[in-house]
């Protein structure tokens, strides 16, 4: 059986928004930063502040999201951030400017600033995405996508996919307990990378098997109740309010502005601000 995220209703501006608004706003910001390839701190940093503000407005307790943020921080700082810092990968070619002063171990001023910008961009997107499972009613995941024009099957697939991760986490917890009871200690993994991955088999294989079984069960249960045999009615109705129009307009305006600035005026590309160069050299 699929379980859901740790959602609970809160009387906040964020949770009063229509779920479609939140998806549209999230996609607008992601597209605004990625499609016109915005690296300019004068655009990235205000968007980061906006995301951070919206995150705090969601009023999620830190203990609820602590684990999610640990994963995100590891991903953003240690994988993306260090990669950007040492190799300058993932950005425009100007990051690899050979004339940029070297700070240490091949890290140039340009790469250092790029790493800061890249991490800020990623966090801007993550801060909007992380609160969704905790603040959006799991009953309206599918409805939200259906009402945005997505097909029945894809909408329900998204609904199931969202609940797959916490179900996976639950199964993993049970398996970890079962293997610990057999003397297995995850923290004592030894050897090289391949050996360590092999040592994770006692956790990975049962959880994958369990997930496969759960998937088959869900398909049978849906078949027996005529899923996919006719166009589906979706019981939940969604209505936009003034605040939704405002947020959608804001998201779309940000996207258009970024596109116009970048492609119309050439503003938004990567450059190292002088204050940073002065600060680190």
């Amino acid at each position, binding site marked *: *059986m*699929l*379980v*859901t995220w740790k959602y609970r209703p809160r009387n906040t501006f964020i949770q009063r928004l229509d779920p479609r608004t939140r998806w549209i706003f999230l996609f607008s910001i992601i597209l605004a930063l990625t499609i016109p390839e915005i690296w300019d701190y004068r655009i990235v940093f205000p968007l980061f502040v906006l995301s951070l503000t919206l995150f705090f407005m969601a009023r999620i307790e830190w203990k609820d999201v602590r684990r999610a943020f640990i994963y995100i921080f590891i991903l953003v700082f240690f994988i993306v951030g260090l990669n950007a810092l040492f190799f300058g990968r993932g950005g425009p070619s100007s990051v690899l400017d050979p004339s940029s002063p070297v700070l240490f171990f091949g890290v140039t001023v340009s790469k250092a600033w790029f790493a800061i910008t890249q991490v800020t961009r990623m966090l801007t997107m993550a801060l909007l995405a992380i609160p969704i499972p905790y603040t959006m009613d*799991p*009953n309206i995941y599918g409805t939200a996508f259906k009402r945005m024009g997505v097909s029945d099957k894809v909408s329900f697939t998204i609904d*199931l996919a969202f*609940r797959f991760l916490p179900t996976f986490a639950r*199964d993993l917890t*049970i*398996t970890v*307990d*079962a*293997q*610990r*009871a*057999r*003397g*297995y*200690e995850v923290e004592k993994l030894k050897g090289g990378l391949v050996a360590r991955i092999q040592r994770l*088999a*006692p956790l*990975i*294989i*049962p959880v994958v*098997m*369990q997930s496969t*079984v759960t998937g088959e*069960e*869900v398909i*049978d*249960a*849906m*078949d*027996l*109740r*005529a*899923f*996919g*045999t*006719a*166009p*589906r*009615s*979706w*019981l*939940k*109705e969604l209505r936009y309010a003034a605040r939704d129009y405002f947020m959608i307009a804001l998201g779309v305006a940000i996207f258009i502005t970024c596109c116009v600035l970048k492609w119309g005026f050439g503003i938004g590309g990567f450059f190292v601000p002088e204050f940073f160069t002065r600060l680190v050299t």
Partner: protein
Amino acid sequence: MPESPLVIENLSFQYRTRPEPAIENISFELKPGEMLLIAGSSGCGKTTLARCINGLIPRSYRGKRNGRVLLHGKDVAEMQIADMAQIVGTLLQDPERQIVASNVYNEIAFGPENLGFPRAEIIARVEQAMKRLRIEHLRDRETFNISGGEKQKVALAGLLAMNPSILLLDEPLASLDPASAYEALEVFRSLTDEGKTVVLIEHRVEDAITARPDRLLYMETGQVKYFGSIKDLPTEINHREVKLPAEWVVKRVRQMGEKIDKRSSPADKTESIQNVERGESLVVFENVDFRYGDETPLVLQDVNLTINRGDLIAVLGPNGAGKSTLVKHAIGLLKPTRGHVLVEGKDTRTMSVAQIARVLGYVFQSPTHMLFAPTVREELEFGPRNLEFKKEVMQQAVKESISTVNLNGLEEYPPLGLSFGQQKRTTIAAVLAMRSKIMIMDEPTAGQDYANYTHFMDAMCRPPAEGAQSLVAANFAATMFITHDLDLAVTYANRVLLVGDRHVVADGPPEEVLKDFDLLRRYRVRPTSLLRLNLELLSRTGRFLTAEALAAYD
């Protein structure tokens, strides 16, 4: 005259991958307001028959099918799945497998939504289904947060919202505690009385007959052995294949003139355990409180308990009473919020789970949560290797444990490719190979039918010969199992713990704890015919016996 809702004519089916037919020449007809009980052990063809009725055969399972299944006069093979779903509502064995939505209201609405009904009609159907099953109070609850009995009612409401004329109930009692199972059977009867045609597939005939089925169809190896009234004991029914009321078993054993096996007596097992040194405290709970989070309510409160050498403990109690939480403290997976748990005198707070595993082996409910290795042998070596056994000691332990649970010849097979019963035995062997002193099993009979789980428990807890020790007595200083099946406690345990309301509310020999019916009912444990008969004869037997052994007492 209207067509009968369900007519089966000379139905046979052979799966494409099997050499022999799964069912052969089955015929019967059911009328509105009639309940048919289908009984038989695993592999008798019950599930195949159910798949033929709900249309999964021939749609999802390919093979050679002869004969016809008619729903209101129409052949299933020629019907659309959407039409089928409105005629046959299938309730699966485990409601968890059936529920797809995250909230109760959405779950009940799922079927009507799929059929594309208008919104007002969906709401009317959902409200009506909830009212019918008296679950309106659950409407906004998350489906994964409700009890097993509530989940089943929600799954059933989801079917009723599609207004089927036939309800196909596939072992619907399997995951329920006894009181919830009884409530479910009452609901099935009342739905039948309202005009639904109900097909109840259940190997626990004793429980199923409380729903007063009109007829019984008993199957063996794909064929109908008995079809008719259920009032008198049909001699065609094998009491070792399905669970019958104790009085029926006694009558049948006497009628058939079967030799009564004295080893059926749990007292023999108790005596064999008594042969070993008793009384040494292995695990001690001292004033244990536990809660999962700072702001969550207590799950265990002031629990004091000692597991002694020689104990074979059955842990009973309703869902959510804290049974699993209790045993997870013993293995150190959970640490008390207050108080202490001592394993061989050491506080579990100062020990790792791996250290405790040397003393205490824990077999989880589902084998798929722990089996992973490419072969049975490697699976069994996993625990000893983690505990850093020397190679020759490990090999000897693995060899012995394979032999003990009768997995000889399967050493090089992949555990996940074995049958469920064999997988279960592999998990036991995995704990045996660790040479722990205590074994704890969580619902050891879950997912197995009566014939298989009786065989499994007999193999574990019954001495193989007069004067010999049972498998658990020979290999473990103490054994503890969590169960919903009261008869397992009656038949196999020498001590019963009743857990409820965060406490151990009763602790003692089965003959003492299980005689208090008021206490049992308060904690949703429903007295069985075997318990009643044992209590009636206790002054003569002096101990609890199996139904077969009771046949010796006139």
